[in-house]
């Protein structure tokens, strides 16, 4: 009975949330002169959400560890940059083709995934991340090596999308679509297969689930989403370089999924929102507060707080922020019948 409550989704909130997302830029513009900066942060957030949703499908739902996911983002970004600026492909097509290229690479990494598992898989994906990075640098004629590439702004049906305002709508429309699509995947046969694989490969196989097919599919989908995120990042930032897509970024993404709550899609969204806000708004505020008291070199404090939050959340709240939210909601719903045991 309680399980049903956990799955309870108030669908009528969704149009409201969508409306909110579309209104935020207006609200921001009215509230502050620096709205462009905040829009920029929100854009990055939206791009990352697209990726972390994919990562959640891979790791949270299928249980496959990927420590090099930023590489897929890089593939998407560089593919799109090269296709649009050098080959002359229209942006709309690149928006479809580049993620597929990234998904294809996801497919490639899927092969080793069939042979190795757990921590070995993590290391393989990490190695893959390094290899892809090197590959991109090695293709110097197209990618300018490690110097970075300037990328043009997206052009859709003759309209050029430039500036944080326009970028926001492009990014978030896609982000919302991705979230909805991901939830539908999760509720479908594919999603159930993923979860079965995560919980027990042997049982899944015994139930007739084709491990190879679904593992590859999981990598493929998460690769596509990461590639989409990369494409958007390339065209809204107008500059990409291999320095950005390093293993630290991959780890950031995993932190976002874990802190938000793996295996729920919404968790990935909440986690990403939380971490991006933390990184850009809360920690600097904390720093300026602390500067008054102690003089610490700011940079390390940020990393330290980051590591600390990640650590604490893993130890004390392994179900993540979304898990916390669910607990709170159940608490309210069952009030005043709240056996203490259920909420430890």
């Amino acid at each position, binding site marked *: 009975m309680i399980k049903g409550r956990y799955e309870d989704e108030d669908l*009528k909130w969704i149009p*409201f949330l969508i*409306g*909110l997302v579309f*209104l935020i830029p*207006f*609200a921001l*513009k*009215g*509230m502050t*002169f*620096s*709205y*462009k*900066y905040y829009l*920029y*942060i929100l854009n*990055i957030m939206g791009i990352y959400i697209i990726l972390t949703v994919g990562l959640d499908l891979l790791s949270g739902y299928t249980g496959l560890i990927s420590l090099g996911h930023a590489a897929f983002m890089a593939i998407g970004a560089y593919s799109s940059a090269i296709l649009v600026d050098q080959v002359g492909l229209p942006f709309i097509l690149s928006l479809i083709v580049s993620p597929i290229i990234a998904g294809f690479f996801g497919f490639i990494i899927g092969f080793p995934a069939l042979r190795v598992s757990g921590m070995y898989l993590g290391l393989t994906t990490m190695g893959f991340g390094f290899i892809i990075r090197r590959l991109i*640098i090695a293709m110097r004629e197209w990618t300018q*090596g*490690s*110097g*970075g590439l*300037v990328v043009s702004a997206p052009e859709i049906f003759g309209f050029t999308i430039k*500036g944080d305002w326009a970028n926001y709508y492009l990014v978030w429309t896609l982000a919302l679509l991705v979230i909805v699509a991901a939830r539908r995947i999760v509720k479908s046969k594919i999603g159930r297969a993923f979860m079965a694989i995560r919980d027990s490969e042997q049982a899944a196989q015994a139930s007739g689930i084709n491990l190879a097919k679904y593992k590859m599919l999981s990598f493929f989908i998460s690769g596509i989403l990461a590639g989409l995120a990369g494409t958007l990042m390339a065209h809204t*930032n*107008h*500059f990409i*370089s291999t*320095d*950005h897509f390093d293993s630290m970024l991959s780890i950031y993404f995993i932190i976002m999924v874990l802190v938000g709550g793996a295996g729920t899609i919404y968790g990935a969204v909440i986690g990403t929102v939380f971490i991006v806000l933390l990184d*850009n708004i809360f920690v600097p505020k904390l720093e300026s507060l602390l500067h008054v008291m102690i003089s610490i*070199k*700011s*940079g*390390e404090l*940020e*990393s330290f707080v980051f590591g600390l939050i990640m650590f604490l959340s893993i130890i004390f709240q392994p179900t993540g922020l979304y898990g916390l939210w669910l607990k709170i909601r159940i608490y309210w719903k069952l009030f005043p019948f709240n056996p203490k045991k259920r909420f430890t």
Partner: protein
Amino acid sequence: MKRLFILLFGASLMTIGCDVHEGPPGVTNTEIIIGNVQDLSGPMKELGKLLPSGSNLYFDYVNQGGGVYGRKIRMLVEDGQYNPQKTLTAVKKLIEKDKVFCLYNVIGTSSVEAVRPLLEEAGIPLVAPATQSGTMSDMSRQGARYIFHTDTGYDRQASILTEYALGMEDNLKIGLIYQDDDYGENVLKGIGEAETKFSISVQKESFQRGASEFTGQVMNLIKGGCTHVIIAGIVKEPIIIMKTASRMGYFPQFLGISPTMDHRVALAAGAAGEGFISVNFAQLWNSNYDVPNLYRELCQKAGIPEKMMGMYHYYGFSTAMVLVEGLKRAGKMLTRNKLISGLESLKNWDGAGIQQITYNRNDHSGAEAVMLIQVNSGVQVPISGWLK
């Protein structure tokens, strides 16, 4: 539920404000705010402490004298972690949120490349980016009109160094060992130019950023019979390279690009580093000229620990002087365009303790010459004048 929705919608529509501008951002009657992005927690975090400290040393001095036309200079420092994306975010924050007047000393070649679109969009100048990459003064790139470079580019350094090496003796073979990233790429460009100009071919060995193993590359240089080796690394690499070579009984003439001028190279390399020639593009901080003297005097007054004084600290100091000169020349009615034209009026100006700086509308490279420093009995001494 529905009503709440409509209410919120209406409220947000009503709050669409209009932008009001009074004069350029970051300038008031009493203050000029400038934005700096350093690496405070990443791979180059050492510099993140030294550079702003040097800059602030000069700014405080200027502020004590009343500032520039009565305006005191205040510098905000953001953390870019030497990462282009983070630097982009930091610059965005400085421009949109903190509304700085201009940018200064942003560190990292690819980081600066990443923010070019922002410079173009906001029309904001970037003075003295903290990198010696020649791409800073490449006028064909976006936003070039806003960037003012104060250092001699790596490519020029490499080219001049090759020329100098060729002049040292006949029958030599030049080798290059370079860091495989944008630094190295710029060096390669200069080497390529020298190769064409002098019809020679330089043996090239590369290593990855952060590497600490060079046995393979050194052995390749030996195999290639190189008599002169140019090192395009930072601090750790020249030390280990020279020590490895010395252990193998290989004693070519080592030459280094500007980052290798760090005094720690001579210190840690010991005997192996004897005779090492490195490139400098500014006056030595401990030399006996006007600006270095002023620098040391101010350091003493401010109680700067000896550990901090040195090449990087001095770099922050001297580039600050360039910025202030530009601000002065811009005049009392300060706007970004006037800063740009103020800087472009600098002609053979030697007031910053670097070298003669020249800018004009089509040339923002500022410095073009180098001075060579050699390690003699463990001490660095200049062995040439300004070479072009």
